[in-house]
Every structure is written in C-alpha cells, then in structure tokens.
C-alpha cells in the first residue's frame, strides 16, 4: 500500500462508510432536530427578555443581567454536567436530550438578549417619542417601530452567535445524546477506523456551511444598506 492508499483506507474507507452510513444519518437528523429547537426557543426567549428589559423595571433588569452574565461566563459543558449528573441526586432526572436542549437554549437566549438589547438601544430615541406621540402603546411601539429597525442591526451578530451555539450540540456526546458526533465516535471505536469521524465532519460541513454563507451574505447586504 502506498501512503496515499493508507490515508484513504484510514479516513475514507468505503466499506466502513457503507456500514455506518445509517448511524451517521440518524445522528445528523438528531443534531438538526436539536439545533432547530434550540434556535427557536433560544431566540424567542432572548427576544422576550430584551423586550422585558426595555420596560426598565429595576429588579427585573437586575435579574436579567445576572442571568445573562452567568450564562456568558460559564462554559456550557459545565452546565450540562451539573444538570445531567447533579439533578438526579435531587430526584429529578432529565434525559440527555432535554439537558442539551435546555442548556443550549438558555445560553443562546442570554447572548440573543444582549444582541437584541443593543439593537433596541441603537434605535434613535426620537423614534419612540414620535410613535408614542401618535398614541401607539408601549408594545405597539416596540413591535411596529423599534424592533423592525433594531433587528436589522442584530441580524449579522445574531447569525454568528446562533451558529456558534448550535454547533455545541456536539457536546451531547458527553451525556449520551445520539447526535452526530456521538454516533461517529461510537462507530469509530467499533470500526477501529477514522472514517466515521471524517463522515461526521463532512456532515457538519453540509449542515453549517450554508448557514455560514447565509450569515456572510446577510452581513454584506445589511452593511451595504446601512452605508
């Protein structure tokens, strides 16, 4: 065997590919499913918190800031381990899937809150005055006037954050969630061959490269709009 053949045999072994393709595909869909759930719940909660914060009620804002700071400062893996291994001792057992979804949603919500809030602050205060002077209520002003302007500025950072956080679905591997990376490492140890890891890498590329490009496209588009 030449070196190149050995390389192919180790990382792109066709027999191993065929054998483990179903597992990898299953893992791919689990990853997609969790990612979608995380994005939906995380962004929704983040937006909710940012709107809540704009009411500027002292103690609520204090709690929101504490929540955001905590989730920005703690590695998600630490939270995952605490919830997964710690809670059962209190008689509350959550499945790995729930723990993964919960932790990543909260982390995304924290970052999204910061981004939405910065967006809301960036909208000129005259906009709020004008809207309120025509009789629009607080929430109406938010929904029809402030948020549409705020969201434009938030789209680029939000996409980047969302990608970075949904990629953390790979952490599910550590707590036995049957997602892509978990399937791949399991297959790799059974097969004694690195091909499944390569397959997982390619699957991640298929999943995230389009999103990365969409993010980049949005970024240039809105950067141009602003200019």
């Amino acid at each position, binding site marked *: 065997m030449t070196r190149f053949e*050995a*390389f192919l045999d*180790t*990382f792109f072994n066709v027999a191993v590919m065929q054998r483990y393709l179903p597992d990898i595909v299953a893992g791919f869909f689990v990853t997609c499913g969790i990612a979608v759930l995380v994005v939906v719940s995380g962004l929704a909660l983040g937006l909710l918190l940012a709107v809540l914060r704009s009411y500027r009620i002292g103690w609520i804002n204090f709690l929101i800031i504490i929540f*955001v*700071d*905590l989730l*920005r*400062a*703690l*590695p*998600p*893996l*630490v*939270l995952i*381990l*605490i919830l997964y*291994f*710690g809670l059962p*001792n*209190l*008689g509350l057992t959550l499945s790995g899937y729930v723990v993964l979804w919960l932790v990543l949603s909260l982390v995304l919500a924290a970052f999204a809150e*910061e981004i939405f809030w*910065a967006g809301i*602050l*960036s909208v000129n205060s005259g906009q709020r005055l004008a809207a309120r002077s025509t009789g629009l209520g607080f929430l109406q002003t938010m929904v029809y006037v402030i948020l549409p302007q705020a969201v434009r500025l938030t789209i680029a950072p939000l996409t980047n954050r969302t*990608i*970075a956080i949904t*990629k*953390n*679905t*790979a*952490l599910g*591997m*550590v707590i036995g969630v049957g997602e*892509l*990376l978990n399937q*791949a*490492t399991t297959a*790799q140890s059974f097969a*004694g*061959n*690195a091909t499944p*890891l*390569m397959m*997982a*890498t390619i699957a*991640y*590329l298929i*999943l*995230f*490269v389009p*999103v*990365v*490009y969409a993010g980049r496209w949005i970024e240039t588009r809105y950067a141009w709009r602003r200019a």
Partner: protein
Amino acid sequence: MDALLHQFFNIEVMLKAWPIVLRGTGLTILLCLAVIPLGLIGGLLVALASTSHRRMLRLPVVILVDFFRAVPPLALLILISAGLPFAGIRLSPFTAVLLSFFLNNSAYYGEIIRAGIESIGAGQQEAARSTGLNSWQTQCYVILPQALRNVLPDLVSNTIEVVKLTSLASVVAFAELLYAAEMARSVTYNASPLIMAAAIYLVLLWPAVRLASRLEHKL
C-alpha cells in the same frame, strides 16, 4: 433544601476535592496562557491573508476559515486526538488540544480582525502610502491600531469564548479544571465539585463578561 445543600454545596466534599480541582485550575490557566496568544497570532495572520490583494493567498485562507466556522470545536478536537493516531500520528493530549484550539481560534479571531481592517477606509491606506510608508509600515502603524480598537469589544468577548472552550479538553482526558471536577464528582457521587468548578470559571470570567458588555453597549 437540605438535599440541595448536601448535593451541590457540600463543604466536606469540596474540601476533599480542593487539591485536585486547584491543580486543574492551574492547568486551565496554563492552557489559556498558551491558547489565547496563539489564537491571536494565528488570527492576525488569517486576517492579513484574507484582506490581501493576492487571490492565491486569500482564497485558501477564506476556505479554511469557513471550514472551522462550520465544524464544532469538539468534533475537531476528537478528529485530531482520536483520528490522527489511526494515521500513525500520535499526539499527547496537550498537543492535540493546543493544535485543535489553535486552528479553531485562529479562524474566529481572524474573522474579527478582518472585519476591523475592513472597517478602516481606503483613505487611511492612501494617506499613509502617500507619506512614503511601505505596506507593512502602513499595516503596523496606521491600519491595525485603528482596526483592533474598532473591534475591541468582539476581541474581548471572543477571548471569553476561548477560555470557556478550554473546558472541552476534559473530553479528551486533559486534566484541566472541568476534568478534575468531573473526576471528583464521579468518585464522590456528589455534584459539589462541579459547582466549585462553575464558581471558579465565574471568578475567572465574570469581570471579563462585565467588561465585554460595557464595551458592547458603548457602541
């Protein structure tokens, strides 16, 4: 309530776990001291390459950056630490961790610094060159200082992410903070060491988080 205290804030367990957790903290800090400068240097090179006028230089770097933005850092780490041995390349856990974090962080820092460089108008470049500075001098003295200042908030917040990222090293048995705490947990069947680890991460990162959010809201 008692159960909560016993399971999560057990002083006895914490005291027992303290030496090993402390060692882990030391290794985490060491890892950060290696990974942050490496990532910044890599990021600077990536940024310079991806804003270069030479297509041959720009294209491969852009592709690499997109690759690392799309692949989860844990997957990369496992590919390097568990995949490479099959090809006869055996790296120590520390080297594997360093290599994979270097690749990942360079891509992220690189994107940030690139955005900073692109935020500087062409006028600065022209003005500098018109006074006879060469292109390296222009970068060093005119473009980069402004670029880095413009993206300082993003650099700080990415550095927080880099520190948090070091916790992934626990998955490949590198004995940093989280690995130590998780070891202690599995021996004592008590989550207090994990809480301890969380507290230490907070102590390390909370000031940085405050700083980052200050900087972000100033914009």
